[in-house]
């Protein structure tokens, strides 16, 4: 009798499970509750009618955050989608954007822009010279925040004599002026109506720009939806709707791509080389690699008690096997880097002797400097063990692997390397305050290299300033950088660049690792995936589905 009870109940349980299973499926098909399902169904319906898909799902490792164009806390790809600048930077030089044309006075101090007519912000406000002046006023109000761009220091004033003319006056001629106006931030234009009493330094009311897309919806740490700007003055993008999902983990992103939950992964540190090499052969997915954009490097803090010793820094340079990192970790996708800036960067094609990889040489330098092998295979000098910490960004897909590799490589030489991973934000904070021994860094890449990257070394913007503080010739280098920025003579400028780059190279402050490039993996039906001069921009406007 007990048995009968068991069977009855088992049968009950099984049928209940089946029923609930069916119900779940049924309700899913019938109601299609989730937004995504509606989307995919709509997309599928369109696809079957023969019109190509016009909705794209993109992915990023974190939230879009604060998209105030005059501050630095938002994701740059999203700011590029919403806002525009006076000029844009292309492979062939500067191109008109919100400014139709411009004139530079003979003394190089006055820039006069003719503002494009008929451009409106997505809230209907007119984007004329007055609106642009309002933006500049808001930016200038928060001047300290932007002095990493030298033009802020040279700025005398801005004015809008009429609604089509905008004038910027500088105290000295400044050759990277247009580049600085063309970078993503801070000189991007937001609707004056979205400002808080004409000010943006304490946040903005809404993210309203003139760009090709508008922000429709965003759920913190989950997704953001952008739609094409119906009133865009330029060529309207083919992809009408872009959903950006937040997926912090590399593996999850790849899985999501493989399952069709997302269409595109794009970025320098969003995809590991294993995935790239896996999908290179696939016909379901395409892979695109940009030309080298910037240098992956490690910055050495010269104020550290151990690392202020130049010999130690040079030994570490010789102990770093760039070729193995390039081949082993990147499968050759990123070429090994010998110098801080690639020779293809303007003004950087100069003769420098690379620190070749040689364990013997590194060991010899350390021996001669008095660092002798102590207990536990760690070198010591005057009782101080050769222990260093390397800080990496745990949101980056390869930095941890490189760290672990270097840890074991340096370990062989008796350098104990502790590695510490932190998420993007606190990693940057630590870098800024100089709270590190060695830290991963990138030089900023095009269009910031070399002028803005170097200019920023003079201030607490990134790790460079703190790292270089221990250099004896820091003041001299800084002065030379300042001279570069305001020099008008091409030859003298080249000479100064040579001086700065040679000093930094010989001081062994930077360990260049590889020349990193932008990588993209996407479904093969997506076309037009390319790269622009601004490495942080994702050029959605050129993309379309087939």
């Amino acid at each position, binding site marked *: 009798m007990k048995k009968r009870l068991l069977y009855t109940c088992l049968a009950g349980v099984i049928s209940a499970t089946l029923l609930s299973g069916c119900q779940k499926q049924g309700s899913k098909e019938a109601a299609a509750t989730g937004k995504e*399902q509606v989307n995919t169904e709509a997309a599928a319906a369109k696809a079957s009618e023969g019109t190509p898909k016009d909705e794209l799902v993109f992915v990023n490792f974190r939230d879009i*955050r604060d998209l105030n164009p005059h501050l630095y806390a938002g994701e740059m790809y999203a700011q590029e989608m919403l806002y525009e600048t006076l000029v844009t930077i292309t492979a062939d030089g500067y191109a008109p954007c919100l400014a139709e044309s411009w004139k530079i006075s003979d003394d190089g101090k006055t820039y006069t822009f003719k503002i494009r007519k008929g451009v409106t912000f997505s809230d209907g406000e007119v984007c004329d010279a007055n609106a642009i002046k309002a933006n500049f006023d808001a930016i200038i109000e928060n001047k*300290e*925040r932007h002095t990493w761009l030298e033009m802020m220091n040279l700025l005398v004033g801005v004015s809008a004599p009429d609604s089509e003319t905008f004038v910027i006056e500088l105290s000295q001629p400044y050759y990277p002026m247009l580049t600085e106006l063309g970078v993503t931030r801070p000189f991007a234009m937001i609707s004056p109506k979205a400002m808080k009493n004409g000010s943006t330094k304490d946040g903005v009311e809404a993210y309203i720009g003139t760009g090709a897309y508008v922000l429709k919806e965003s759920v913190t740490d989950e997704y953001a939806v952008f739609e094409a700007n119906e009133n865009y003055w330029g060529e309207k993008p083919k992809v009408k709707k872009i959903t950006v999902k937040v*997926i912090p*983990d590399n593996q999850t992103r790849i*899985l*999501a791509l493989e*399952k069709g939950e997302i269409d595109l992964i794009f970025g320098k540190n969003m995809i590991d080389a294993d995935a790239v090499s896996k999908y290179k052969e696939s016909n379901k997915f395409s892979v695109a690699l940009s030309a080298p954009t910037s240098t992956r490097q490690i910055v050495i803090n010269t104020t550290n008690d151990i690392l202020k010793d130049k010999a130690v820094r040079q030994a570490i340079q010789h102990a770093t096997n760039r070729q193995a990192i390039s081949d082993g970790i990147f499968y050759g996708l990123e070429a090994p880097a010998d110098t801080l800036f690639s020779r293809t960067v303007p003004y950087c094609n100069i003769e420098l002797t690379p620190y070749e990889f040689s364990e013997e040489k590194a060991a010899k330098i350390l021996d001669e400097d008095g660092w002798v092998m102590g207990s536990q295979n760690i070198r010591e000098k005057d009782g101080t063990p050769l222990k260093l910490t390397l800080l990496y960004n745990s949101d980056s897909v390869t930095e941890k692997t490189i760290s672990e590799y270097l840890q074991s490589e340096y370990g062989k030489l008796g350098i104990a390397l502790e590695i510490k991973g*932190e998420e993007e934000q606190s990693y940057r904070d630590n870098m800024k305050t100089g709270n590190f021994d060695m830290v991963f860094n990138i030089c900023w890449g095009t269009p910031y290299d070399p002028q803005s990257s170097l200019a920023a070394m003079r201030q607490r913007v990134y790790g460079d300033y703190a790292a270089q503080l221990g250099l004896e010739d820091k003041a001299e280098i800084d002065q030379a950088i300042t001279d570069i920025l305001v020099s008008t003579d091409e030859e003298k400028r080249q000479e100064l660049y040579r001086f700065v780059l040679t000093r930094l190279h010989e001081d062994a402050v930077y360990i260049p690792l590889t020349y990193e490039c932008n990588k993209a993996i996407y479904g093969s039906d997506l076309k037009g995936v390319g790269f622009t001069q601004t490495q942080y921009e994702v050029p959605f406007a050129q993309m379309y589905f087939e």
Partner: protein
Amino acid sequence: MKSYIVKRILSAIPLLLMISFLCFVFINMIPSDPAEVALRVRQTPVITEDAILQVREELGLNDPYLIRYLRWVGNCLKLDFGVSYTNPSRTVLGEISRCFPATFVLAMSSLVIVIVLSLPIGFFCAVYKDSLFDRIVRGIVFMTTAMPAYWVGLLLIWLISIQWDLLPTSGSGSVQHLILPSLTVALTYISTYIRLIRNNMLENMKEDYVLYANVRGLKQSTILVRHILKNSLHTCIVAIGMSVPQLMAGTIVVENVFAWPGLGKLCIASIFNRDYPVIQTYVLLIGTLFVVFNLLFDIIQSIADPRLRREVS
């Protein structure tokens, strides 16, 4: 009855005070200076000694410890937990309330799975003690106690999502997203409840009233379901109810494996970013939930089973 409930509620107050005090001490032991943090939050470009002193005065950081504690408790009661250190534009309350629903949904669905599976399994294990079924279940239960939840999660993702392509790998958004994580959470708790129900039923079977019912000639199935199961259910429901906060805390690991946007993920991210106010509030929240749920189910139990009241008083 009433006096028991009042007494029980009063007894929870010192516990809550202790927990809140621990949380307060916690944030005051951290290495970073709150004044400096406040300046950073305000995006002050250059932080000077003078500015720090001024802010210390302004925030009342120079007041005695106890006063600051009371002020903090007052703010907490007003649901003001401060702002996040890493994302100064977000308040802690906003972060917590953004992540809470996800964790709650995950915990509840795991709870449902736990109840639906452990009740019948535990029941049959007790009824057919030492049968093949019982032994197999006990074997499985034993293995699950030895398996790390995160590993189970990884294997599930690999097998079900990658190999068979049946469910999404991670994230949230639909019912399908919920299945794997809640199953993983449930798996770590289910063994406890199967054991609990089984042992409880077995104990009940030895009771006199069962003997009496047998003597009365009641049908075996009636005795099992009407008497023994009913009696065991009391204990089990209370135990399960009390474990709700435990479940909510237990989702930390699973949330991180499945990228489930809940409190656990927030907590781990905050630990890595040293976002102390968020961690503090999280600990305070879970601690409070624990006390409240214990209290609630203690009272429910005492209403259901008057014998316990006498024991306590």
